[in-house]
């Protein structure tokens, strides 16, 4: 048997496809026939020093994959399967794994350390394998270096897999002690030090208590800072990675160390190898992130009870930090703008400079201006580019007051550089900087406009010309035009300065989309996105021109459908182009369908357009096109009840979209479109409701579907009921129990992290919107009594939400609305129930005195219906 397993594992890596396939099948069969024996054999293979390294490695990998999976539902199954396994077998497997950690073969022990961590991830929260951490730590100092390295690695992986709350503080202390000792310069072996430093990175999240203790924190910080000076580059890099992590996790503990950290990071940025220097810059970017968050959250006002005070590290470091970052800007690589994966010192430094500007605002301007003035006209392209990039980087953060006069001078220079500079890199950055100028200093919120009727023509001329430049420059230019258009989005029905150039702009963008090289640098996408924004922000004056654009884009979409016999690569391109064109049509539908005068003219295209969307769907066999679905939602909203004529053909794609568990975005968008259709068709949607409801109920019961789609599905129940009224009766027996159990689950969000709390509130909102829709749907029907049995639970749900005190404003508004809807629809029959509920008194009063006018409005409504229900 053992020999057989080795053969299978080796053959499964064979070059010969037939052999490989056969071996894979044998392994699968073995696994299905006898899982305990299969897993035990694998662990036996892994530990056996006489086996070839390749079979040992694969044995470990298969073990790992038998314990964990990316998909949540699959992961859950695997965990259950492991927990159910015979404990004697498990003990043997674990023993093999631990033994492998001392193997002289690196690949074997490295694989084993990952598997140990996976097992720990399952067992520790279930109070199994409690002796693990002790076993790993017990004889650490006596182990030979290779085993020590593997053990530290295991501890690192373990900290990554396990949540800090399942490891008690005593064990945390032991882990940290072992790890920090391993990092110490007294440790002679480099591999051990590196493994310890990487392990610390993962163990940091366990160190809350230790970071609160001055002595322990001082010690950890000293060891980390020392490691940044290690002769070994990988150790220095790993040590900086620890510092970056500390900067966000323990920002509030950094004050005593910040001066020293500045000194070592400055030295690293100037002198060290790039991977280390990049992490050193990242430390300061990360501090900026923290301070921006704090300042945004508290608006700069720190009272004694603010959670985390701002220490203004960046402001203090500013005079030294800015020159350091400016220096990095001169270290560009040739052709970095053509390389999507590029990330180098100049890019990291410029990005950090931008974050610093956002953190300190006006103060950065005088520190950067001399650098710009000195370099912007230099013959060396690196200097001109660095100066331009520095300028572009500081445009977000400082006040318009501080920047406007500078920008007014710079604008002409930039326009001229975009036309005349011989260097592609400089032009790329110049176009980007123009985009930043338009993004942050142009628009209805800026007092002194930098774009006037006087310079508008010149700007447009330059931009349209520059769209003919190299793809990377043209792409940035499209971005600049995007923000130029966005700045005029509020002009509404009055005159837009872009109106005289509208035709030229549209023409230029369409020309870009047809460029041979439009596939490079995202150029085609940028051109369509800019076209969308130009249309979105256009004024009424150009409505006719937007209307003329409709048949042009429809023709383009039609052409993509005529392509035959595509390779998979071509098919992907076709698919992408169809997405862009559908997106463009969606924007035009919303623009033209949104105002009465254009809507009627627009209607002439609707049949044809819908025909195209259906053909786009038909291009694919199993999935629906997300962009086409979005466009159809907009169409249904625009044309209302007339949409019914498309339903017979469209319905199957709607169903297909609702079945798309894998691409949950598609499913979510389709759920939204169901809502659009309900509102458009009202009771005419009835014939399709059986199918839609079946699909939605399936979606809700699926553990494969991403959870973010579930709240909108509940809301969709409300849309359906509101559309079909008492006909919702037949779905009550399915929908109500689902809502009820989801409601019970969603009441308690306490102890959850922010993300979970946010999700819980989304879920509550969906459930409540469903209830609202159902009540209002049944309003004035003779069947309102069917809802009576659900009233006690719903009122109880509202009461519990009120008691939990963790609703956000949106939920509060929806919840009090449901109370009103319940009273409105059930009337005096529910009077006694309502009077008993806390919601009808305390919750209602709280909402009535809310500052949020939407909550207040809903509360007023609820008050009126309750008083009617009680008084009758």
């Amino acid at each position, binding site marked *: 048997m053992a020999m057989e397993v080795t053969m299978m594992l080796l053959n499964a890596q064979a070059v010969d496809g037939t052999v490989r396939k056969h071996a894979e099948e044998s392994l699968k069969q073995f696994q299905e026939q006898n899982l305990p024996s299969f897993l035990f054999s694998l662990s036996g293979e892994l530990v056996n020093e006489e086996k070839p390294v390749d079979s040992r490695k694969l044995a470990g990998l298969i073990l790992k994959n038998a314990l964990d999976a990316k998909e949540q539902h699959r992961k859950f199954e695997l965990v259950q399967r492991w927990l159910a396994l015979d404990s004697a077998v498990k003990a043997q497997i674990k023993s093999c794994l631990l033994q492998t950690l001392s193997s002289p073969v690196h690949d074997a022990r490295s694989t084993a350390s990952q598997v140990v961590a996976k097992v720990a991830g399952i067992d520790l929260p279930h109070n199994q394998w409690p002796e693990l951490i002790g076993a790993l730590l017990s004889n650490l100092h006596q182990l030979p270096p290779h085993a020590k390295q593997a053990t530290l*690695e295991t501890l*690192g*992986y373990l900290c*990554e897999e396990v949540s800090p709350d399942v490891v008690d503080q005593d064990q945390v202390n032991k882990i940290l002690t072992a790890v920090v000792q391993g990092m110490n310069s007294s440790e002679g072996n480099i591999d051990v030090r590196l493994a310890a430093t*990487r*392990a610390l*990175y993962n163990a940091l999240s366990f160190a809350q208590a230790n970071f609160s203790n001055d002595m322990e924190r001082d010690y950890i910080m000293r060891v980390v800072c020392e490691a940044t000076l290690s002769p070994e580059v990988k150790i220095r890099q790993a040590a900086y*990675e620890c510092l970056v*992590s500390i900067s966000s996790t323990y920002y509030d503990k950094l004050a005593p160390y910040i001066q020293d950290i500045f000194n070592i990071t400055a030295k690293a940025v100037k002198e060290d190898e790039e991977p280390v220097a990049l*992490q050193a*810059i*990242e430390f300061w970017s990360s501090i900026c992130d923290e301070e921006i968050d704090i300042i945004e959250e508290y608006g700069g006002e720190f009272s004694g009870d603010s959670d985390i005070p701002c220490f203004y590290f960046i402001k203090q470091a500013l005079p030294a930090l800015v020159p350091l970052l400016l220096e990095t800007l001169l270290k560009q690589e040739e052709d970095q703008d053509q390389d999507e994966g590029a*990330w180098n010192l100049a*890019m990291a430094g*410029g*990005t950090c400079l931008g974050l610093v500007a956002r953190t300190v605002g006006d103060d950065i301007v005088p520190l950067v201006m001399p650098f710009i003035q000195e370099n912007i006209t230099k013959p060396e392209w690196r200097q001109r580019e660095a100066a331009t990039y520095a300028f572009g980087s500081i445009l977000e953060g400082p006040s318009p007051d501080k920047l406007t006069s500078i920008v007014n001078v710079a604008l002409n220079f930039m326009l001229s550089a975009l036309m005349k500079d011989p260097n592609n890199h400089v032009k*790329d*950055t110049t176009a*980007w900087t123009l985009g930043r100028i338009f993004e942050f200093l142009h628009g209805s919120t800026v007092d002194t406009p930098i774009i006037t009727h006087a310079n508008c023509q010149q700007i447009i001329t330059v931009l349209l010309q520059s769209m003919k430049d190299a793809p990377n420059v043209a792409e*940035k230019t499209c971005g600049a035009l995007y923000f130029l258009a966005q700045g005029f989005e509020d002009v509404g*029905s009055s005159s837009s300065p872009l109106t005289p150039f509208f035709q030229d702009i549209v023409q230029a963008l369409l020309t870009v989309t047809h460029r041979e090289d439009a596939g490079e640098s995202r150029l085609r996408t940028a051109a*369509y*996105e800019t076209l969308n*924004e130009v249309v979105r922000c256009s004024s009424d004056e150009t409505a006719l021109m937007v209307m003329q654009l409709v048949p042009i884009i429809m023709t383009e979409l039609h052409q993509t459908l005529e392509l035959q016999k595509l390779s998979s690569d071509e098919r992907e391109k076709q698919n992408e182009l169809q997405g862009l064109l559908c*997106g463009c049509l*969606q*924007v035009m539908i*919303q623009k033209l369908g*949104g*105002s*009465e*005068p254009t809507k009627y003219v627009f209607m002439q295209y609707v049949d044809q357009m819908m025909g195209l969307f259906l053909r786009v769907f038909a291009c694919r066999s199993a999935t629906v096109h997300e962009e086409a679905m*979005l466009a159809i*939602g907009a169409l249904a*909203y625009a*044309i*209302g*009840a*007339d949409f019914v004529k498309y339903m017979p053909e469209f319905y199957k794609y709607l169903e297909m979209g609702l079945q798309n568990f894998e691409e949950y*975005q598609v499913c979510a*968008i389709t759920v*939204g479109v169901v*809502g*659009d259709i309900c*509102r458009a068709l009202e009771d005419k949607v009835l014939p399709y409701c059986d199918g839609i409801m079946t699909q939605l109920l399936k979606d809700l019961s699926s553990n494969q579907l991403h959870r973010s789609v579930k709240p909108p599905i509940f809301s969709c129940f409300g*849309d359906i009921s*509101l559309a079909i009224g008492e006909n919702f009766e037949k779905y009550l027996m399915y929908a109500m129990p689902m809502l009820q159990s989801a409601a019970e689950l969603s009441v308690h969000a306490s102890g959850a992290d922010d993300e979970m709390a946010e999700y819980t509130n989304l879920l509550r909102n969906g459930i409540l*919107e469903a209830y*609202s*829709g159902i009540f*209002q749907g049944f*309003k*004035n029907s003779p069947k309102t009594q069917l809802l009576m049995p659900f009233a006690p639970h719903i009122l109880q749900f509202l009461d519990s939400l009120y008691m939990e005190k963790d609703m956000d404003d949106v939920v509060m508004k929806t919840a009090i*609305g449901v109370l009103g809807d319940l009273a*409105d629809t059930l009337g005096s029959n529910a009077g006694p129930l309502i009077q008993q509920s806390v919601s009808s008194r305390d919750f209602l009063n709280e909402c009535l005195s809310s500052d949020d006018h939407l909550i207040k*409005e809903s509360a*007023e*409504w609820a008050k*009126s*219906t309750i008083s009617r229900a009680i008084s009758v």
Partner: protein
Amino acid sequence: MAPPDPRRPFKRLPISDQQKRRELALLRQAQSRRDSQHHARCIASSVLSLQNREESQLEIEIEEAEPELSPKPSSSNSRDFDVLRSSKLRGPEVRQWFARQLMLPEWMVDVPPRLNSDWYVFARPAGKRCLLVSSNGTTVSRLRNGSILHHFPSALPNGARTKDISGPAHSFSILDCIFHEPDQTYYVIDMLCWRGYSLYDCSAEFRFFWLNSKLAETGACNPPSQYHRYRFTPVLIYECDHIGLHEAYTGAFPYTKDGLSFYNRHAHYQTGNTPLALVWKDENCSQYVLDTDNKGQVPAQQQVVLELQDDGKLTTSDDPRVVCGCLDSNFMQQSGLQSGSLLRFVVGEGGFRFVDGKLEMADIHYIGKTNRARAFADSYSKILFQYTARRSPLKIDDLVASISSCHSQEDGSPDVKMVL
């Protein structure tokens, strides 16, 4: 161990346009859902009575084309709009329905207590009382009997086919107005719905506040223009103290006055007759203190209109009805009168006799049926006001005196302390 990737977005647009489109679509859907929900709620509270009647007794004639209301029927109009749907009612149902939509003040036959603290007063413009609805790009005003007064574009929310991004096209606004012919102005005396938000269940205090702050925002108070055929003006509403009452009574207004209206500060907008809104007139502030006949003449004797019931009883329009007399069944058969008819009577020499504030006896004589356009009988308070106006009217001095006595009560009399 996941090494941190220091890579940050570099020279990129902050969000992708696709994400933006997704978010905009979600925003639109959430907004439409709120609107539908809101719509359902508003309809529920404002058209409640209509729907009940639909089910019970009224026959409703639904016509596809409604020539008066929408000269250019369009696909978008298929969106249900129940207040407009009421326009599809026919004949007496229309009058009944619209009569039920307005709050009808009682006539002031005695001065309510706490006049100076709980009440507002305003000078009532002479003109046509109407219910005005703006929605879906048009504005329609209807008289109390349901007939259309004007169908026109206005600067009210969704009141004209102009680009109005401030709200969904089907959200509606409802105003209680008096149209004053001489200056072609709608004087707005109350606000019932605004941008789909129902104000029916709000106090008069809030409604007047809302009316005064919201109406001007829309430009509805501007002089007429292409998309705004008539000017709207909110009436000046005063606290009913000495100054307010004096202003309303003697002040000069751009319109012809027709008596004074009094609104209780706390009262919700209650359709039909209500004692929480009152009207009072004398010769100084109204040309029409005494009712005129259809020739415009004040008849020598008071006339009243009463509704004939199944059992021959003659009642007022109040709820509950007040019985003023009875016809015998022989007479009913002879003259072919059916229950529900509105009949006109003249008040004889005997007049009315009251016992403990209740009508005990009425000396009335049948004249004939009323004009078909009439929707309802006289209210009890109107009959009483007309009756006393011809004999011993309630004078302005009585109102002033009542305010003074309120004051003296509040200022003069010390609190009564409870002694244990």
